């Protein structure tokens, strides 16, 4: 039986890993290549490199770092951040990415998903959605969670799947950085319509939150988190041993 995946996310700016709380108040953490190797050795099932650089120099630095990581870490790598065109897919795939996640780029140009899926296959295209409750609905937010697009998250995800997204990352802005657990309500709503793997993001504060996630929502395929891993609050090896002891199928 396929295992539940644990995925650390590395937000990279100017060649360094950073993590914001509710996308504000960024702290420097560590070297992306070293951290990637450390996570892979600890049993991470996959890694996400999220490029939050704004400048062209920073972007070139990011692909250098990606290539360096992909030369020493042999687990799947997903890259996100600043992906606006099919050429951006090409740029990161050439440097060792296996999957590419689109967020604001797909909101600006909804054809990006289908164009990339046709060229690289659905398995390569991850639709990443930052969503937040607004008037009893889940709205899609753009620009790192700063801008309400007014789009309904459930409809947006349905459309993304139809256009060829092979995986969905749902990041709840409401629970992100709060460390009180994943947004089970929002994730549950997405699981009801999801035909492709769903990766839960936002809110993990401890190991118990992963157990809670996979027990409450068997259709969730993976849990993603950043700061709890970077700051050593949760060790991936210990987490996976605990999940296994709790009866959740993981790769040990």
């Amino acid at each position, binding site marked *: 039986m*396929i*295992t539940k995946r644990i995925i650390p996310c590395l937000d990279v700016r100017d060649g360094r890993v950073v993590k914001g709380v509710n996308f504000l108040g960024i702290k420097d953490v560590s070297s992306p290549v070293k951290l990637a190797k450390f996570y892979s050795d600890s049993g991470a099932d996959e890694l996400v490199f999220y490029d939050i650089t704004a400048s062209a120099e920073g972007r070139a630095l990011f692909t250098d770092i990606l*290539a360096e990581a*992909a030369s020493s870490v*042999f687990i*799947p790598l997903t890259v996100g951040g600043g992906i606006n065109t099919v050429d951006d897919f090409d740029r990161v*795939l050439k440097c060792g990415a296996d999957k590419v996640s689109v967020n604001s780029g797909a909101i600006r140009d909804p054809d990006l998903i289908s164009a990339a899926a046709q060229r*690289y296959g659905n398995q390569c295209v991850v639709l990443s959605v930052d969503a937040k409750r607004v008037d009893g609905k889940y709205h899609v937010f753009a620009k790192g969670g700063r801008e309400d697009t007014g789009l309904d998250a459930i409809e947006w995800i349905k459309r993304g799947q139809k256009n060829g997204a092979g995986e969905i990352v749902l990041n709840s802005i409401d629970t992100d950085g709060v460390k009180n657990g994943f947004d089970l309500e929002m994730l549950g709503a997405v699981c009801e319509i*999801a035909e492709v*793997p769903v990766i839960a993001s936002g809110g993990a504060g401890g190991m118990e939150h992963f157990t809670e996630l996979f027990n409450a929502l068997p259709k969730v395929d993976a849990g993603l988190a950043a700061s709890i891993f970077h700051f050593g609050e949760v060790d991936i090896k210990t987490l996976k041993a605990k999940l296994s002891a709790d009866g959740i199928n993981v790769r040990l």
Partner: protein
Amino acid sequence: MTAIIDYGVGNLFSLKSSFAFIGEEAVVTSDPKVIMSADRIILPGVGAFGDAAGKLFSSGMADVLYKAAEAGKPILGICLGMQLLFEKSYEYGEHKGLGFIKGSVRPIAERVDTSVYKIPQIGWNALRFTKPSPLFKYINEGDFVYFVHSYYGDDCEQSLLATTEYGFDVTAAVSSGSVYGTQFHPEKSGDVGMKILKAFCELK
């Protein structure tokens, strides 16, 4: 030296890096002379079967592979590369494959309840051996490897080396003579994957 065949499908960065990591020389090439002078051959592949098979046949690469196999050179097809070793595929129509492995390639969706088993199968799944193979000399049954696929090799009992459970016993690895195939990606399967590539490099 290992020749990684470049026929315009997929991303060869990780594959090339993984050979460097295990200390084996590997060259990404589409030159028949280089391929025929190699000790072993990797047939990668991502994307649609029809396109990839079309490229292999129209470029003459299929003939190079037939010659290499006839000479007893170890060949390893990975993911779509494994599927291309089969006789045919039913991915969007019906397409002819290389025919090294008796059997056909069919949609996983035909075999499972897709509300439970999502398509593609993406993630780490455990290997169950069906036949001993030198490819597995450094790994154990139950070891996890990384899969990403929507189609599977069917009706290939004679060549089956390993399966994985995804609603049914899904073909994970096959071999016939010196030709091997893995549905999973060894180059993305961490230590276990590196051990499989190392064992492949030791095949004579």
